[in-house]
């Protein structure tokens, strides 16, 4: 089904996310004017600019916002482009996407922000909101011009999945960002613990002889972030929680009213380290898939509100990125193709 550029579109007999009853949606000049109970069948009549869509088999869902995705442009366009990924996002039901700053160059200058915004506009896919790189070049030392980047349209800053071992720089970044009420989107991952790992440190990694990433690699880094959050009152969003213990820690932080929220990667609600059997590199994820207990805690955290959102963690790759022995493959899973049905399981 394709919506034409008509001034008047009527979608008939469509189910809504929160109702199985048939509804009619009326759109005028690109704006939803009315969502109501099913009406008598419309006909185009004389007004040829009215498009009528019979949507008995469809579900209408509000445009979703994705908190973490990689569009790969600039610099990594062999994997994906702003055009290809923003269109894929839109097709998957995301109308607004926050894109990770780990491009080449990273999103640490106004020029890169403008380039991304221009290409996104030209592509006419989902709205793209670039996340600012917290430090220059994501090198972990020099702060980026956060206020300037915020004014240019970056809603938040992040260090992507790149470790930030310099605690002075992190502390200062959080204080500085707090001055402009700019939220930080941070992944909890220690810079040394499990740094050479490519799988959850557990039975599967042991059997496959893969270097492991212990849960402590996440929780040690999380404790550091939470304590700095307490100290600086910086608005902190933890991106892609992976372990049961991390969910517990965030729950406790919320109970004492720290300004912290978090999300879980879509795939982490489904997969565990069992998926790596046979060295299946399509499940090589930078934030590792952990045990069934961890996965169940993530699901429970989502149910009880400790986890505030699901993000796609969309990471497109070219074919060659997976053509190597497991530890040498590039981590990350593309998500958009199957994101919506998987997300709806948790609605």
């Amino acid at each position, binding site marked *: 089904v394709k919506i034409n550029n008509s001034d008047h579109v009527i979608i008939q007999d469509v189910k809504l996310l929160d109702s199985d009853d048939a509804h009619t949606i009326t759109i005028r000049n690109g704006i939803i004017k009315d969502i109501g109970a099913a009406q008598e069948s419309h006909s185009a009549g004389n007004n040829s600019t009215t498009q009528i869509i019979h949507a008995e088999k469809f579900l209408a869902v509000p445009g979703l916002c994705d908190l973490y995705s990689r569009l790969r442009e600039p610099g990594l366009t062999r994997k994906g482009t702003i055009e290809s990924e923003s269109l894929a996002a839109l097709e998957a039901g995301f109308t607004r996407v926050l894109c990770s700053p780990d491009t080449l160059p990273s999103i640490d200058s106004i020029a890169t922000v403008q380039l991304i915004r221009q290409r996104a506009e030209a592509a006419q896919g989902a709205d793209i909101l670039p996340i600012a790189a917290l430090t220059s070049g994501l090198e972990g030392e020099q702060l980026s011009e956060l206020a300037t980047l915020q004014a240019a349209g970056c809603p938040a800053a992040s260090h992507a999945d790149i470790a930030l071992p310099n605690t002075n720089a992190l502390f200062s970044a959080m204080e500085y960002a707090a001055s402009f009420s700019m939220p930080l989107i941070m992944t909890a991952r220690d810079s040394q613990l499990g740094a050479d790992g490519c799988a959850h*440190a557990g039975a599967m990694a*042991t059997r496959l002889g893969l270097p492991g990433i212990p849960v402590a690699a996440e929780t040690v880094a999380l404790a550091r972030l939470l304590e700095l959050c307490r100290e600086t009152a910086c608005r902190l969003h933890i991106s892609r929680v992976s372990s049961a213990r991390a969910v517990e820690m965030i729950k406790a932080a919320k109970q004492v009213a720290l300004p912290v929220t978090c999300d879980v990667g879509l795939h982490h609600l489904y997969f565990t380290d069992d998926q790596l059997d046979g060295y299946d590199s399509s499940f090589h994820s930078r934030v590792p898939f952990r045990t069934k207990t961890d996965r169940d805690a993530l699901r429970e955290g989502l149910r009880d509100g400790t986890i505030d959102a699901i993000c796609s963690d969309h990471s497109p790759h070219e074919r060659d990125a997976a053509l190597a*022995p*497991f*530890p040498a493959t590039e981590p990350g899973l593309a998500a958009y193709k199957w994101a919506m049905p998987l997300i709806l399981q948790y609605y």
Partner: protein
Amino acid sequence: MSLADPQFNLLGDLHHFIDLDGLDRDMLTQILDTAEGFAGVNDRTIKNVPLLRGKTVANLFFENSTRTRTAFELAAKRLSADILNVDLVTSSTNKGESLLDTLQVLEALQCDMFVVRHGDSGAAHFIARHVSPSINVINGGDGQHSHPTQGMLDMFTIRRHKGDFSQLCVVLIGDIKHSRVARSDISALVKLGAGEVRVVGPRTLIPADVESLGVTIYPTIEKALVDADVIMGLRLQKERMLTATVPSSGEFYRTYGLSPERLALAKPDALIMHPGPTNRGVEIAGSVADGKQSVILEQVTYGIAVRMAVMSIIMGNASNLRREKA
């Protein structure tokens, strides 16, 4: 969902030899029986048999190796195959060529079998999945994962001395975490029904959830050695001392070294094994390595018969190993 075992072809025949995990007890026993036949060949004056005449075996070693490479070379020669040693440690892969491109070049040279050693766990799986179907792949060691011919030659050595596995108490000492030999030995011992498999070492060298492999962790080497029938030392790599896993070789020997005093705790006829190269005075006392219970050099000798068996089985020139359902 997990990927199918790449070792078996569509008929269910063992086509590559990558990992002992996918093989059952009968298959392991059949490999050991076939190796018995070849052990006889190696004792004769004329040591060659024509099973692989006209075939070309390429040794592809992405990591340094003398022992394993030499043993494979001899095994191939005694089966009358042509052997090509390709030194890849200093070769084109260091110039940025992808592993797959390197393999395709070697395929184009029309080799029949690749013996591969690589530093990444899972490399042999990857290669087996991507080579053309006419090529057989043997894993000569992949990262910290598996060294299946070493595992089989260890089993061969144990069986020759002890016969039955079911009553045996086997102790593995030292660096279990980084050892592909330990993983293959454990996998084979558990499949062959060993009575008890114990591991002992500092916690920094014991991998997470190691019990899931079917072993028991012992707190001290003294406790672990009581009633032991087979004692396996493992090589402690020097670089482990640089990464805060072990403070010094001296302390390692004092806490986990196989000294004559400690050996006395095991059964009097306990076998001393080690995959080599041994670090004397680190994992094992020189007098123990050279003592009458040591079978370390026998392991090396049997390695040839075992590799001849594996090579001829996967090339279909000995009794095939077929699993029930492909």
